[in-house]
């Protein structure tokens, strides 16, 4: 696909079980849309990892693997804007006060890097609490990064 060609808009939505298999499935679906949108391999890797980390947060920390809770995945690409929304039904977490994984005292921590990688790899990241309970993460990537 030529760099300046405009792919057809695409939208998909899935309600996924709170399992690690869903993490793989969401990554596969999201990367598929990004691939059809014409993103380069390097960006596909970044999108895939950002979706994976966000899904892990939703499944593990949000829904805590609950069989009764779903993760809603929506992926849209419209022109050069590619958006992924991942929403869980958990109790939420304090995303504004997470420890900085790059601080010297945190470098050897075995966890706490997921959201940092998401923010490093996407052009825009928004996190909001949902009214009835849950957290929604919105990831945006521009086909030609701003």
């Amino acid at each position, binding site marked *: 696909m030529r760099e300046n060609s405009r792919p057809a808009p695409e939208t998909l939505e899935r309600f996924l079980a709170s399992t690690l298999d869903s993490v793989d499935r969401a990554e596969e679906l999201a990367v598929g849309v990004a691939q059809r949108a014409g993103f380069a391999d390097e960006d596909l*890797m970044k999108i895939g990892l950002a979706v994976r*980390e966000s899904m892990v947060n939703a499944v593990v920390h949000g829904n805590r693997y609950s069989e009764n809770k779903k993760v809603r995945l929506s992926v849209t690409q419209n022109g050069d804007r590619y958006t992924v929304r991942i929403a869980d039904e958990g109790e939420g977490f304090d995303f504004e006060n997470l420890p900085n994984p790059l601080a010297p005292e945190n470098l050897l921590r075995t966890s706490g890097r*997921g959201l940092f990688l998401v923010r490093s790899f996407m052009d825009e990241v928004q996190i909001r609490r949902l009214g009835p309970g849950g957290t929604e993460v919105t990831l945006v990537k521009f086909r030609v990064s701003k």
Partner: protein
Amino acid sequence: MSVKLETRQVGDVSVVDVAGRITLGEGSSALRDTIREMVGKNHKKILLNLGEVSYIDSSGIGELVSGFTSVTNSGGQLKLLNLNKRVKDLLQITKLYTVFDVHESEATAIRSFT
């Protein structure tokens, strides 16, 4: 493919050839179990060959850090060999690249253990 780990001995250095995905679940727990077992058997010089690792996520990075800490705390050394661009980029972004002793040549890595 998930992860495949094969251990071989080169002199007094234990080399672990890691292939596949080190992600949350089977991949990261297999790596954790292997390192834990080696520490339990008093292996002091461990070289992780990551040349065939196709994918690593934050959980996998956490397992590398955990392995490094556990081997160091037991008086040993854990070093990394053959990082591909993807793994190297992630370690650089997370500022861990300078925490680990990273080598591109197995012979040099083996000789670097003290």
